[in-house]
C-alpha cells in the first residue's frame, strides 16, 4: 500500500507539480528572485513579428535586465545610440542578457545588426527611459541635415552610377580616373604642393565634394597632374580619422551596412539584389568624388527616400555617424583601414 501511495504521489507530481513548478518558476519566482526587473524580449524576423515587446518603458535610475532570445533565426542584438552595447549573435533558442541602469530620460533603440530577413532593417524596438522629475528631452533637429535643407541640397539625389546628379541638383560630369586615387600616395605628395586654405578646413571639406577640392587644388597648382592632385585630395579627405575611429567604424559598417553595400564597399553585398535601387558603391572613387560628407552623413542618419536605405539616426550617435562617413572615404580613397 505504501508503494502504491508513493507511486500516486510521484504521478501527481509529474502531471501537476512539474508544470506548475516550471511555469511558476519562470513566470513568478524567477523575476521575484532577481535583484533587477527582468524584461524578456523575444526576437523574430520582422515578418514574424519582430521584437516582442516592440517597445517598453523603464524608469531613470532603475536597474533592468534585458533578456533577448531568438525564436527563428540568428539575430544580432545591439542597443543605441551611444550605449555601445552589442550583445553579438543570439542563436535560436539561446538567451543573452544585459543589465543596465539609465541615469536620465531618453529614447533608445534595440535592433538587429545582422541580416535576418529581407525586412531585416525593420527589426527595431524602442526603449523609453522616463524620468518623473524631468520631462523627456524634446528631440533635437539634426543641425547638419537642417543646414542641408536650408542650402537646398537634395539628400535623395540619385546616387547610382546611372543618372548621376550632384547633391545640390546640378548635373555632374563624373570624373574618370586612369589610376585609382590613393590617400597613401597623397600623403607623401601633400608636402610638396600648394594646398588652398579652404582644403585645410575640415568643415569646408564636409560640405564640398572631392571633385570641388580637386578643381581648387589644380587651379592653385597648374603644373600638377590630375592623378597627383586626386591623390592629394584623397589624402585630405581621409586624414582626420584616427585608426581607432576607423576600426570602430569598420565594426559598425560590417554589421549594419555590408549586407547591402558589400564589405569592401563595392555595392555587392549578399542582399544587394533585394533592394529597390542598387546600393551605393563606396569603393568607386569616381562616384565618391562627387559626394559630400554632410550628405553621406544625412543619408545615413535619415535614410534614403525611395531606396531601401533605412535610417540609422536612431541607432548611432552623430559621432558614430561621422566615423562611418570617414570609413566610407577610407574605402573609396585607399586609406589604410583600421581593421
Amino acid at each position, binding site marked *: *500500500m505504501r*508503494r*502504491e501511495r508513493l*507511486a*500516486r504521489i*510521484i*504521478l501527481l507530481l*509529474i*502531471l501537476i507539480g*512539474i*508544470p506548475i513548478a*516550471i*511555469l511558476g518558476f*519562470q513566470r513568478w519566482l524567477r523575476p521575484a528572485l532577481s535583484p533587477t526587473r527582468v524584461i524578456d524580449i523575444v526576437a523574430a524576423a520582422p515578418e514574424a513579428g519582430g521584437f516582442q515587446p516592440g517597445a517598453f518603458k523603464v524608469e531613470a535610475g532603475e536597474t533592468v535586465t534585458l*533578456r533577448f*532570445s*531568438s*525564436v*527563428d533565426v540568428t539575430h544580432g542584438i545591439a542597443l543605441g545610440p551611444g550605449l555601445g552595447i552589442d550583445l553579438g549573435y543570439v*542563436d*535560436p*533558442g*539561446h*538567451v543573452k*542578457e544585459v543589465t543596465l541602469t539609465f541615469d536620465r530620460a531618453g529614447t533608445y533603440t534595440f535592433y538587429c545588426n545582422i541580416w535576418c530577413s529581407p525586412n531585416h532593417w525593420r527589426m527595431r524596438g524602442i526603449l523609453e527611459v522616463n524620468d518623473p522629475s524631468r520631462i523627456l528631452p524634446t528631440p533635437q533637429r539634426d543641425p547638419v541635415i537642417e543646414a542641408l535643407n536650408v542650402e537646398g541640397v537634395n539628400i535623395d539625389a540619385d546616387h547610382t552610377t546611372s543618372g548621376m546628379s550632384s547633391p545640390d541638383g546640378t548635373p555632374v560630369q563624373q570624373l574618370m580616373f586612369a589610376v585609382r586615387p590613393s590617400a597613401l600616395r597623397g600623403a607623401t605628395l601633400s608636402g610638396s604642393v600648394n594646398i588652398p586654405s579652404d582644403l585645410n578646413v575640415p568643415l569646408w571639406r564636409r560640405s564640398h565634394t572631392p571633385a570641388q577640392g580637386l578643381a581648387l587644388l589644380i587651379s592653385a597648382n597648374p603644373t600638377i597632374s590630375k592623378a597627383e592632385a586626386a591623390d592629394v585630395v584623397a589624402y585630405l579627405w581621409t586624414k582626420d580619422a584616427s585608426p581607432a575611429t576607423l576600426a570602430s567604424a569598420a565594426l559598425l559598417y560590417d554589421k549594419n551596412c555590408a549586407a547591402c553595400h558589400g564589405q569592401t564597399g563595392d555595392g555587392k553585398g549578399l542582399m544587394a539584389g533585394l533592394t529597390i535601387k542598387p546600393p551605393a558603391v563606396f569603393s568607386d572613387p569616381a562616384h565618391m568624388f562627387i559626394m559630400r560628407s554632410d550628405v553621406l552623413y544625412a543619408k545615413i542618419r535619415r535614410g534614403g527616400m525611395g531606396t531601401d536605405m533605412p535610417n540609422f539616426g536612431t541607432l548611432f550617435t552623430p559621432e558614430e555617424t561621422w566615423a562611418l562617413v570617414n570609413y566610407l572615404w577610407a574605402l573609396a580613397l585607399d586609406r589604410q583601414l583600421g581593421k
Partner: protein
Amino acid sequence: MLGQQRIDLLQRVPRLKPMLKSRLFPPALMLVTLFVFMLAILSGLFGTPAGSRNFGIIFVWIVWWALLIILLVPFFGRAWCTICPIPAPGEWLQRRAIVNRTSGRLRTLRWRWPRRLKNLWLQNFGFLGVAIFSALILTRPNISAWLLLTLMIMGVALSLLYENRVFCRYVCPVGGFIGLYSLVAPVELRVSDPQICASHKTKDCITGNEQGYGCPWMVFPGKLARNNYCGLCLECLKTCPKNNIVINLRPFGSDLLVAKERRLDEAYKAFIMLGCALLYAGVLLGPWGWIKQWANMDTLPHWALYAAGFLVINLVVLPGLFWVTTAFARRLAGQSISLRHLFVDYAYALIPLGLAAWIAFSFGFVLVNGSYAPGVLSDPLGWGWNLFGTANVPWTPLWPTLIPFLQVGVLIAGLLFAIHIAYRIARQNSSGHRQAYLAMLPLGGFMAAITFMFLRLYAG
C-alpha cells in the same frame, strides 16, 4: 543462423526474474519515462520554438528515436512498449492503481473493439498520417507536443472505452512498426512448454490472478509464436502459476520465418516502413531543397502534392513494383502457390532491409545533431537556464566522416540478411533449393535496387 537455439535469460541471470516479477516493474520505469514525456510536452507548448534548443524536439526525435531504432528495437524488440508512458495513465485508470494488483474487473465501459479493426491497418494509416506531416512534427516543438498529447489523450480515452491496451495493440502508430521490427530482434518472450499452457485450465495469464493482470495485449502466451503483439509488459511472468514463461535470447530474425501468421496488413506495414525510410532519406537528407519546402508546407497546394505523392509511393508504387517482382519470381521459379500468398510471404523479407534503412537514416541525423542534447538538458525550454552547466555546449557533429561508412555497412548487412530471409521464405514455398534460389533472384534484385537508392542518397 536462424536455427532453434535459445538461451533462457531468466535461468542464465537468476537475479532477473525476481526483478521482473516485482509489481514495481514496469510502473517505476513508466513513471520515469512519463516525467520525460511530460517535460517534452511542456517544452513543446511553452518553450522556445527553436527546435534545436527545445527538449521536446531533441529528446523525442533525436535521443529517443536513436535509442529506439538503433538500440531497443533491433536488439530488444518491444522493450520500449514495456516502459512507454503513453498508455500508462489510461492503464492506471483502468486498474485504479499504478503498482498494486487491484481486485475486480478493469474499470472501462467494456465496449467491443470492431472485429474488422483487429489488424494493423489503423496503425498503417496512422503512421502515414503522421509521416506526411513529419517535416513539421520533427522541427516544430508545439506541433510535436500536440502530437504527443493527442496520443496520450487517445490512450486514456480508449482505455476508458475498451478493456486492456486497445490503443497499443490496434491504434498506436509507433507500436505498429515496433511490433513489425521486433520480429527481427534476438529477444523473445515465450512459454517453456506449450503443452503445460494447453492443459492449464484457469489460464491465469489471460484472466489474471492476485499476482497480476490478464494480458493487457490480449495475447495468449501459450500460443505465442512471434514477437509482434507481445508488449513485454511481463504480467504473464507474474501471473503464471506454472513458472512456464521464459525470456529467450535467440538468433536475429527468427520470427520472420514463422509462416502461419503472415498477413497482408503486416506486409503493407513492411512496405510503408521501407517506403517512408526511402522518402524521408530523400526529403529530409537529400539535396532537393524544393521537396523539403513542399514537405514543410510552404504552400498548401505544394504540400498536398507532396502528401499525395508520399501516399501513392507507399501504398501503390512500392507494393505494385513488389507485386510485379513477386509475379516474375513465381514464374521464374515455376511456383504454383497463389501470387497473393507469395506477395504477402515475400514481403517479410523486406523487414530486415527496412530496419537497416531506418538505422542508416537515423545515423545520418543522430550523430550530426546528437550534441544538441546536453544543451537542452540544462535548458529544456530554451529560457536561458543552465541547470547542469551544459547549456552552452556547442553543436558538434559526431564522427561526420564515419557516418557514410556506418550507413553503407548497415545497409549492406541489411540487404544480405534480407536476401537470406527471402531465400528461406522462398524455400518454405518451394519444392527444393533450385526453385527457391530462382525465386530469390528477382526478389534480391528488387531489394538490391532499393538499397542502391539509399546508397546513392547516403554515399553519393
